[in-house]
Structure formats: C-alpha cells, structure tokens
C-alpha cells in the first residue's frame, strides 16, 4: 500500500486566510505556501496522513462578482499545486464564501478529477446550490468548533481520496446528495414493512427508507391584468404533436417538447396531428385535437375580445413517467420563452 502522505490543497476566503476583513474582500485568487489561517486546523486534523502543500485564498466579493473567472483562476492554482485532495472552508454561515467553496470543489472534481470536500451550515446558500455535486459536511453557524469540524472534513476527504464510497449522509455528517443506489437488505421488503409498522404503532423510533424530500410548493401566480388585455398561451403535457412527430417527443419518460405555430389557424385539423402519449387513451384527442388544445374556442374568445390575444405558439410534451428533473427543466425553458414573448397567462391542459 502506498504510504506516501497525501498532498492537500486548502481553500479559504480573505478572512479565514488572515489577509483582512471586508475591506480586503476584493482580493483576487492567490496561493500561499503551506497551511495558512484556518487551513492550519486542517493540517492538525490530517496529522501524519497528509500535508497541506498550499492554501489558496480569494476575496469574497471577487469570488461573488465574477464567479466564473475566480473559479477558473483558482482551478489553475490547484492544478499547479498537484494535490490528491482539496478541502475548502469550512464556510459556516458565510454565504459568498460557501458558494465559492461549492463552486471550486465542483470544478476541481469535474475538470481536474481530484476529490474535494467542503463544509458549511445548513442555511448557507452554497448547500442547496452544490450538495448534489459536492460532499458538503454539515457544520455549525460559527467557527467556534473549528478543530472538531476540520476533523470531520478531513475524515470524509480522506475517504474520498482513497477512492472509497462514503457511508450514508446521516452517518458521515454530510448533506444528502440525492445520489441513491441499490442495496440488498437482510429482510424482504414485506418483512421490513411489518417491522416498521410494529415500531410505528409502539411509538418506537423507525427509519423511513425514503427521506422526506424538500419539495418546494409552487404558488399559482395571480394574473395582474384583466383577461381582455392579456395574451394567453396554450401549453399541454397531453402529447399533441404534428403528424410525423418532428421533434421526436418520446411516448414516455419524455425529455423533449415541441413548439408548434398556430398562426392563421382558427382550429386544428385532426389529419395534421398525432399523439405519441402512452399514459391515456389518446383516441379521443386524435379524433379531435381541440379536446386537448382548445385553439377553436380560444380563437373565438380572441375574436370576441374576451381575451386580448392568443399566443401563436403551442408548447406540447408528453407527461407520463417523466422525471422531475426533466419536467422542471422543460417547464423552465417553456416559461422563459413565454415570458420573452410577452405572454401573460397560460392554459395548461394536462391528462
């Protein structure tokens, strides 16, 4: 086994690098030899297992105001130091610092293939931004227990540097990354279910096998105009596509959507449309597409002046077994395009 001590590079902000306070927050990236500032706690925690060969520092404002440039410059400094492991922070509750730690760790892993670890408080914005890509150790809000927390960063970092898979987030003390994997358990799922029910009924502690997810509520926005002055768009996840499905919208697990012009149309001709959706009986929509995308009635309302204008593009995808990640992305992209086109409201027909 290779007993060579690990080469570790630390990343700190101007404050934890003892370069100054808020007045030095504009400082650009720089490399200092050995362990400086809070990196000394990392060196202490490493003991014989590794050496902090360099401490990189960057001002909080510099990193926040030009994040891409700052990360690119820092990645070059990391590469020059040739470490086996990067330890950033811990950043505690410091927002700019936390985001920079997350961004640097993500970039180092992706571009240099060097393992990286950071630490911060649950409410640091860097957690939500980077926990999926980076192992982020959960720390307190302040630096009061720096030695302790540096030890936890180092322990997780050493595991990653050895190429090993860390234990569960709750055990190792890092934020869940949403990276799930299959395991074979000792008992069948049926046996685990009855055991869990016995525990729950008896008021004993039990561990749900699916963590409670953070699932942000989406409030329905209010229409700030009257309908008479509003531009209305038709959007559907019911799978209406032009015949031949030119965008190749998948019949399930969709990753694509189409944008289809209805300019000059007072209605949709069934002969020109098709529907690949595999989640419902599509024969009625194929017979009359207005059952899904009511261009006919919307045009009438437009003529009558009941709505200001019907948006000339219909967006359509297939909503069946579509992953949340793709749903969120497609929704964002469609919403951006609608907003850019000055659309005020959407009628979204779902199936």
């Amino acid at each position, binding site marked *: 086994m290779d007993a060579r001590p690990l080469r570790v590079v630390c990343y700190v902000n101007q404050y934890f690098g003892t370069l100054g306070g808020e007045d030095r927050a504009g400082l650009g990236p720089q490399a200092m030899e050995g362990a400086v500032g809070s990196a000394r706690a990392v060196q202490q925690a490493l003991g014989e297992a590794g050496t902090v060969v360099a401490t990189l520092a960057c001002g909080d404002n510099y990193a926040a105001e030009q994040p891409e440039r700052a990360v690119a410059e820092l990645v070059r400094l990391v590469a020059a130091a040739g470490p086996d492991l990067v330890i950033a922070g811990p950043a505690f509750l410091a927002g700019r610092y936390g985001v920079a730690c997350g961004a640097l760790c993500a970039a180092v892993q992706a571009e240099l293939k060097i393992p990286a670890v950071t630490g911060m408080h649950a409410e640091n914005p860097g957690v939500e931004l980077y926990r999926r890509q980076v192992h982020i150790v959960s720390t307190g809000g302040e630096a009061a227990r720096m030695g302790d927390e540096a030890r936890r960063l180092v322990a997780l970092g050493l595991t990653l540097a050895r190429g090993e898979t860390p234990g569960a987030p709750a055990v190792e003390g890092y934020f869940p990354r949403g*990276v799930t994997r*299959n395991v074979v358990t000792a008992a*069948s*799922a*049926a046996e*685990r279910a009855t055991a869990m029910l*016995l525990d729950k009924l008896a008021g004993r502690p039990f561990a749900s096998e699916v963590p*409670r997810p953070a699932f942000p509520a989406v409030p329905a926005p209010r229409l700030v105009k009257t309908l008479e002055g509003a531009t209305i768009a038709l959007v559907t996840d019911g799978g209406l596509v032009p015949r031949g499905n030119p965008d190749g919208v998948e019949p399930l697990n969709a990753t694509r959507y189409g944008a289809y012009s209805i300019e000059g149309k007072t209605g949709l001709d069934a002969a020109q449309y098709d529907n690949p959706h595999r989640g419902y009986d599509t024969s009625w929509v194929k017979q009359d597409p207005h059952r899904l995308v009511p261009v006919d009635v919307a045009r009438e309302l437009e003529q009558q002046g009941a709505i200001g204008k019907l948006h000339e593009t219909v967006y359509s995808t297939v909503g069946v077994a579509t992953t949340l990640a793709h749903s969120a992305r497609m929704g964002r992209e469609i919403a951006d395009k609608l907003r850019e086109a000055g659309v005020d409201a959407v009628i979204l027909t779902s199936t």
Partner: protein
Amino acid sequence: MRLEMGTFPVTDIAFDGSTRWEAGRLTVDRDAVLAAVREDPRIASAELEIARPGESVRIWPVRDVIEPRVKVQGPGVCYPGVCGRDIATVGEGRTHRLAGLGVAEVSSVNWHDAGGDFVETYLDMSGHYADMYPYRRLLTLCLVVEPDATLGEEIKNYAVHKAALTVADRLAESVRGLTPPEREVFELGPVNPALPRVIYIWCVHSPQAMSGSPTAFGTATYGLTQLTPPWYLHPNEILDGALTGPYRTAFAMSWTVANNPLLLDLYRRHGKDWNFLGVISLRTEWTTQTEKQLMANQTAKLARLLGAQGAVVTWDAGGNEFIEVVRSIQACERLGIKTVFLTSEDDATDGAPTMLEPLPEADAIVSTSFFKNVTLGVPPAPAVARVIGLPTKQIRRGSTIGLHGGADAMLPTAGPLPAPWRYDDHYGFGSLSCIE
C-alpha cells in the same frame, strides 16, 4: 370466515397419461387439457410447454401467471367472477392449491386497443433477470394460445384468459379429492382487545381510464376491472382469488396477488402482534383530482369505521395513480391511523424527489428500490437456448431501450434482450432497497 388451505407442493411435472398429483409429481394429460381449451370456438391455436427452474428458457409474451387453486368445500369457486365464473362470495370452507407451480398465459393478445399500454413482460428461468422474480422458483406450465384474429380485443382477452384458467382448473381438479400434505387454517378469530388494530390498504389499478372501457381486461375484483370505490375484503376472499392480476408488471400477476408475502405476514401475525382487520382494496387511476381526493377520503373513512389504528399501503401502478394512493395515506394519518407505505421509487436524477407527490404524512416508507429497470441498472437478459411463445419481441422507443431515445426495433426473443422497462416489486417479495 374460516378457510382451510391445503397445499400440495409440486416438485416435478411431466406430460404423461392422466392428469394427477402424486407425492409432489404432477403429470399432465396434455391432449385432454388442450382439448378442454379448444372446446372454446374462439381459440384458434393452443399448445402446452414446460419451463423448469434453472433452464435456459425465455417465455414471451407473459400476460399472466396463475396458481392452480380449487374450492373443495364451501361456497363459490376460486378466482370468482373472472371470465364469467360464479360470483358467490368466497373465503370459507376448504381450498386446495398446487404450490411451486405456475400456469403462464402466453399470447400476443394486447390488453386493449386504445394504444399506449402494451404487454411487455417476459420471464427467464435462469440468469440474473430470472433471479429478480419469484417465478424463477416455479415449475411453469405455459399455455401458448392465440384467439380467432377476427375477434375484438375485449373478446380476445376474455378467450385467452379463460383458456389459461381452464388449464389451471384441470390441474387443480387433480388434487380435489386428495388429502393435503400441508394445511393451514386462516381465520380472523377474536384476539386480545389490547392489540392494535391493523388494516391493509391494497391499491390496485383499473384499466378503465387507459382503455376507455369499464370491461377491459386487467386486475380484477370478483372479475370486475372498472373504477370502483374502495372494497372491503376479508383476506380469505383474496386467498380464494377474489382479487386477481394481471397488470403491466411481472409483479402484478394473479400468482403474486395470491401469494402476496405482505398479506400473509399481516395475517399470520393476527392475534400475536396485532388484530388484523382485513383488506381495503382501492382502485386507482381515477381521472380527476376531485375523484382522487374523494377516494382517498373514503378509504381513510372506511379504515377508521373499521377501527384501524395502523395500516400498510401498497400499490401496483406508476404515475398519476400515486395521487390517490399518497392522499389516502395522508387522509389516514390525519385521522390518526399510522401508516407504512411499501413502494418503489422513481428516477432520482439530479437529486430529484423519487415520489411524485412527496407528502410529509408519508413518513414511514419501505423502498423496493427503483421501478425502472434502467435506473436499477439491470443489464440485458442473456441469450437463451429455447423460447416459449413468440420468436421476436418488439422493443419500443422510450421504454425498454434506455430511458430516452433509441427506436422501435424487432429483436429475436432468444437473443440478449433489454429487460422490460418496469421492474416494481409491488408486494415486497425481494430484498432490494435504495439508499444514499
């Protein structure tokens, strides 16, 4: 209700002389069984083949797997109401079953003609793909059957499923008059009133919304498949086949319903760990939010009126059906009924929640891991020496090949084949889970 279940283990099967069971060996009079199947003029062709555990054999397309059961004493017939059978309430008296044996219904007939819902299941008797299913351990008698091609889809479904039941009946008849080597009495007798009262909320899919037909073939309650408000079933009714498959996945077959390990575990703990109240069977895939919420409310209300303090919840579908399932859990919890949910999980790409609507009330979940074979990382099933059924299988875009993309393709069934797109161990047969 008191039901005595007599079990006849089958350890060997062969085509030979008369149909009879003796000391674990089942012989099947192939000609007589096939003649019974062909009595139905709607059947165009029928053959019987045997698949044994460990053999390099693949069965495609598998519409259902049925465990032969016969009513020996008491009212009604096993698998009541299915394909015109008697609908007398079952669950009492004595039933005999052939254990370790499955009758596979192998046919190209699709569930319905509304599109979008295809028979995708094939079964292997050896290899990694086989090891994921309980059928791997079953001696399987395959009925390869095709109906008159001129018939409508619903009649075709009726005809081929009736044919498979005919085969199962013929085999089960052979043990009607014999003394079972194993017996178990199932009864929800009086128990210590201090024990907590527990109900099983068993959600089963209805094909009505997909097919547009209230009589489409699929998971049935006394033969009915339409969307109905929650049923209250005595577990003995289910042991007699009042609830049957099949649905889209290999875990939603009649065999898995009749052998549901969770039901049996709940039942066998009656009087020891709890007072088992029975089963509420909720139909899923209601089409509007109002209907979904109404079914959830009514399910929880029924559970409370029955006195439930705890509930285990399972389901057999994926997608919008989740809403009435998880809302039922929420409604139960709000009435003070403590729930445990046994479910598979969706794709967690980018750390997305794996539940379609993750409600905080669903705080006790047992995971059978991902329901998509692609996410599970199941490699293609290997080439096999023999195929029972059709020589080619259509692999559909967006489903079986990868998650997104590829094109529809017709592949030789005997060759390496991507696993059907869904896995989904609805009743917890296996030991898979999913952790971070």
